[in-house]
């Protein structure tokens, strides 16, 4: 015991002074936004590898394997077509209902898949977070990339469906690329937002399926958007037209279909689409970064 000195109450300040003198940083301190962004960029290989790994691993226990990437959107479309197209006859007012429905459904699945995965992206990876050091935003971003890969497959399926249903192949189809890019940025922000909220309150996971379903009904996926104008008071329809998902879905229909009923003009849609992507993308990122220190706690 001869070597051990007992320090009194003042040791608190001396410890901090010692740390300052030798330039030691606080463990797990939140980096500045610029540093964080740079580090995140240097982890891009990890994000890509992790998201690709998740695509492969999610189908690895099924017999049909990655064929499900194609089968899932197809089955989804078939079920909704059966109910809303054939049984409920919601196709009134839409000339070519199948591509109308599928465009909405596939674009919506991209967002809902990202949102649901994002909600649990921190809680389901606590082991990884507590074991290794990397910018935590890698996880929600990787989940968005996983969904983007699924969405790209779904877009190929969608292209086939749209062509078979009699729509012409036009140059306007190329617009689907910037639309998907905007939607991906929007989804990335949304995923990061939900990742932090979901890490704080684990009950969110139970609520999200209902939120997403309500959002789907508000986005005119299953029926013509003209119904909003016809059945809702003016101000409510006005608000719904700002709904980001409605914006992206309408843009998708505008690009792939000859004559789809639109709630707003294409110019308005593009402005709204870019605006939402910027607001959600940057806002979600900053919101997530502010919580960077807490994610290991569980």
């Amino acid at each position: 015991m001869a070597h051990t000195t007992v320090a009194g109450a003042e040791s608190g300040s001396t410890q901090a002074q010692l740390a300052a003198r030798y330039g030691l940083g606080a463990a797990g301190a939140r980096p500045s936004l610029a540093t964080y962004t740079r580090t995140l960029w240097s982890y891009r290989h990890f994000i890509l590898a992790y998201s690709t790994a998740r695509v492969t691993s999610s189908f690895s226990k099924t017999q049909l394997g990655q064929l499900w990437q194609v089968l899932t959107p197809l089955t989804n479309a078939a079920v909704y077509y059966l109910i809303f197209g054939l049984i409920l006859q919601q196709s009134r007012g839409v000339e070519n209902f199948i591509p109308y429905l599928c465009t909405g459904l596939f674009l919506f699945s991209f967002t809902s898949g990202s949102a649901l995965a994002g909600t649990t992206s921190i809680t389901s990876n606590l082991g990884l977070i507590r074991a290794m050091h990397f910018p935590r935003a890698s996880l929600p971003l990787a989940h968005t990339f996983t969904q983007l890969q699924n969405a790209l497959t779904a877009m190929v399926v969608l292209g086939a469906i749209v062509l078979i249903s009699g729509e012409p192949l036009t140059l306007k189809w190329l617009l689907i690329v910037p639309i998907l890019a905007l939607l991906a940025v929007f989804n990335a922000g949304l995923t990061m937002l939900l990742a932090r909220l979901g890490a704080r309150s684990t009950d969110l996971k139970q609520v999200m399926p209902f939120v997403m379903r309500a959002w789907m009904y508000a986005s005119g996926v299953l029926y013509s958007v003209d119904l909003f104008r016809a059945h809702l008071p003016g101000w409510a329809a006005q608000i719904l037209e700002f709904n980001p998902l409605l914006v992206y879905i309408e843009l998708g229909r505008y690009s792939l279909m000859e004559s789809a009923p639109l709630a707003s003009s294409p110019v308005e849609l593009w402005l709204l689409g870019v605006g939402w992507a910027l607001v959600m993308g940057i806002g979600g990122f900053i919101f997530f970064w502010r919580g960077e220190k807490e994610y290991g706690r569980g």
Partner: protein
Amino acid sequence: MADMYSGLNGATSLTAPAGTGTGQGRIPTVIADHAHVTYRIHRGASPGGGPAASLRRLVKRTSSPNVREIHAVKGVTFTAYRGEAIGLIGTNGSGKSTLLRAIAGLLPVDRGAIYTQGQPSLLGVNAALLKDLSGERNVALGCLAMGMHPDEVQRLTPEIIEFSGINRRGDFASLPMRTYSSGMSARLRFSIAAAKRHDVLLIDEALATGDKPFRKRSQRRVKELRDGAGTVFLVSHQLSSIRETCERTIWLESGVIKMDGPTDQVLPAYEDFVNQ
């Protein structure tokens, strides 16, 4: 025994291997200043639950019994210097692993502070990887998660698999990790973590995994890492490995430092305590 050392709670150890006494001229690498660490765990379904009970809890604003706050580290203060190897001992649940995670910055500190030089690395055996992926893919993923460049990962992957020895009985590296025995996956995880260079190295029970040849290999590797690293912390229940590796030992009990000093003084006291 407890009385004898209770005065050391929150004490700053200035013990050097050679007994330099005051600690002047030595460079600190890890400084803990009255650090408290809390983490939350979610228990599964608990008896006495039911929707009505949950609602009552919500109304009365009592916290859910499903979530329990664990105050694992309660005001720990110490200073670690460059070139030191420090053993962390204590009975199960005394907060050793939590303290390491807080030093590594993986768990946030509630009150007080922990200062570190650079980014300490935690060498654990519980890095959760993707079970459905092959060992090879997991190696690549783990290395990328540690911030390596893809070229480096490609170069190191065969070495890591060779080191882990999982291919000794057939080509396991290409099989999904869920088909591995627990020993095999622990070995692979350790091999991944040990592939990187570290400034401050935190080792959590890692030396105990695997069979004898692997233990020998990993001990050699830790020695190499230690020679390159500034400071090494070692958590272990095998007192022999602490005695071999560490000249200083911190004894943690219920989240509080019970004793901090030269290994040859702390270990006998701890052994007396355990054998009571």
